[in-house]
């Protein structure tokens, strides 16, 4: 009786997983293998593509710039997102709900539309520059677009909700009575935050920064539209190889390198995050 029931349970779980497994296998794992294969195949197996990436400085520069921009975007998102998530997690449910809708609302619009909207706002004669000049902060329009600043603004805006939602979910799981307990033991608001709330929210910071960083690495639309010629990111490089030079093998090699670097970063980060979990006292 027992073993058959258990087997049935296992079977049921397997059946529930099956659709997702199939979709991932057909649409993700198989093409990925194809890309890896193509990256070492061009009229016969060769490592030429990789050799070229490491020999020509511009490719490494683009990869480095990609990581730099991603790191900056992550920091901006954390600086803006953490206080916002804190508000969401600690305010009255009504206020929090309203704020949450505002945070999630951008997801309902296409990223291209939102990026164009930013371009309108930030352009030479855009609203932002008009206001800045009208208020006397500057005489001539600031260059807010087609440079790294523009890329940072656009990407941070798109990725901010991911940071907020990740940090928020962890903050919500922090027992507010712990902060009360800290107060009852003599801790000021700042001390209670620094010694109790902040350490307990670290898993959220870890998760949010990881998510935003990885999403940033593969960003394409926003840097393509809002960046200048010097702000090329690796995804744009790949697109160029696919669309313009039609060098698919080289594009594949770039993609594999992006994937490998992401995995290395992820593994290293996971170590730290795990460590945090131990301190946090959850399984």
């Amino acid at each position, binding site marked *: 009786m027992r073993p058959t029931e258990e087997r049935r349970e296992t079977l049921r779980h397997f059946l529930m997983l099956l659709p997702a497994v199939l979709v991932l296998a057909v649409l993700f794992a198989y093409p990925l293998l194809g890309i890896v294969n193509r990256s070492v195949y061009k009229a016969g197996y060769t490592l030429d593509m990789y050799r070229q990436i490491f020999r020509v400085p511009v490719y490494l520069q683009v990869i480095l710039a990609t990581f730099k921009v991603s790191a900056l975007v992550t920091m901006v998102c954390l600086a803006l997102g953490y206080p916002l998530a804190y508000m969401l997690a600690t305010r009255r449910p009504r206020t929090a709900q309203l704020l949450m809708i505002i945070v999630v609302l951008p997801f309902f619009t296409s990223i291209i539309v939102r990026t164009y909207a930013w371009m309108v706002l930030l352009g030479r004669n855009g609203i932002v520059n008009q206001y800045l000049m009208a208020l006397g902060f500057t005489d001539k329009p600031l260059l807010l677009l087609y440079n790294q600043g523009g890329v940072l603004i656009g990407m941070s805006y798109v990725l901010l909700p991911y940071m907020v939602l990740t940090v928020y979910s962890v903050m919500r799981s922090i027992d507010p009575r712990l902060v009360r*307990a800290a*107060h009852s033991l003599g801790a000021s608001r700042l001390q209670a935050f620094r010694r109790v709330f902040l350490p*307990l929210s670290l898993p959220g910071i870890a998760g949010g920064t990881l998510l935003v960083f990885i999403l940033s690495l593969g960003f394409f639309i926003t840097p393509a539209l809002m960046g200048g010629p010097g702000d090329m990111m690796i995804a744009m490089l790949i697109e160029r190889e696919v669309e313009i030079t039609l060098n698919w093998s080289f594009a594949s090699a770039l993609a594999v390198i992006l994937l490998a670097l992401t995995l290395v970063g992820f593994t290293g980060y996971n170590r730290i995050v795990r460590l945090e979990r131990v301190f*946090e*006292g959850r399984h």
Partner: protein
Amino acid sequence: MASSEGIAGGAEVRLHELTKTFGSVAAVRDVSVTITPGSFFTLLGPSGSGKTTTLMMVAGFAHPTRGEVFVDGKPMAALPPQKRDLGMVFQSYAVFPHLTVFDNVAFPLQIRKTSRLERLHRVGEALELVRLTGYERRLPRQLSGGEQQRVALARALVFRPRVLLMDEPLGALDKKLRAHMQLELKHIQQHLHVTVIYVTHDQEEALTMSDRVAVMQGGRIEQVGSPAELYDRPASRFVADFLGESNFLEATAVSTEDDGRWRCRAAGGLEFAGVPAAPLQAGQPVTAAVRPEKLVQAEDAGALGPGANVCKGLVEEAIYVGDVTRYRVGLGADGAVMIKVPNRVGVRPPVTGATVALAWSPEDTRLFPRASA
């Protein structure tokens, strides 16, 4: 004034007309009570009686709509919780999950910038007090519920507050452990002479530990007194019912006797005497309360002396509960009463279905006036 500096004694806590309203609902109404320094004071009541809200106002986590809390005569209203220097133990333990036992207990000392050496010494002392020496390096999740609660207690005591507030601290523990912790808490309190304000809905817990108990209902204090006073001389039907067990008989006050007692007649004709909890008038409807263990079989009633109340009833049901057996005895038109008979050699157990004569003292009969119907 009596206690010199340095000797950590308890502080006097005085609640003056403490009131808290949420919208139009009064959670706490006009609670006034003075708590003696170094005593164990319990706020007892069912959920929603306002006991926790009262405690939160003392702690500073809730702001009184009206009234004031005085600690050693000093008004507290303007002070945030962290400036009140009161120790607090929560029902949920609220032990910091990311800190070791040592760091948890050291937390209030670090906040107060106590020197490292002093900190080591005091934490060691506090852990010894709650018998957790050797647990310093463990994390809370490696501890049982009882151990976590001890950590919370050590943490609340380590900075030597003069008042310790506890909000149902034993609520999440199992029965045996709870009984054990009750005694231990009581011993620690007596050892430190700290003033304890304890909130619980468990009447047994309140009776076991407290010097004085305030029974709360609907945001008001129904009665304040020692456990024995509350148990033997409840001021209202609610207290008689909530604290321990009572048999209730609906009756009418007939006439007063020279010793202050009143004779009453129940609806079914039973006549008995009792002590009024409030002034009565002849003809006034009353509810009489008698504890089950005060009702004895007539043949064991020698000690009650003359003037004891007596009645006859039919033994309807016996419920064996180990140390005693409880019997429901039908009184005809006057309903039924529960009696408790100890399971011991020499006590003749009543037989189900038999008629039994019961006796009880008028002293053990409390009369509560009812609003006339």
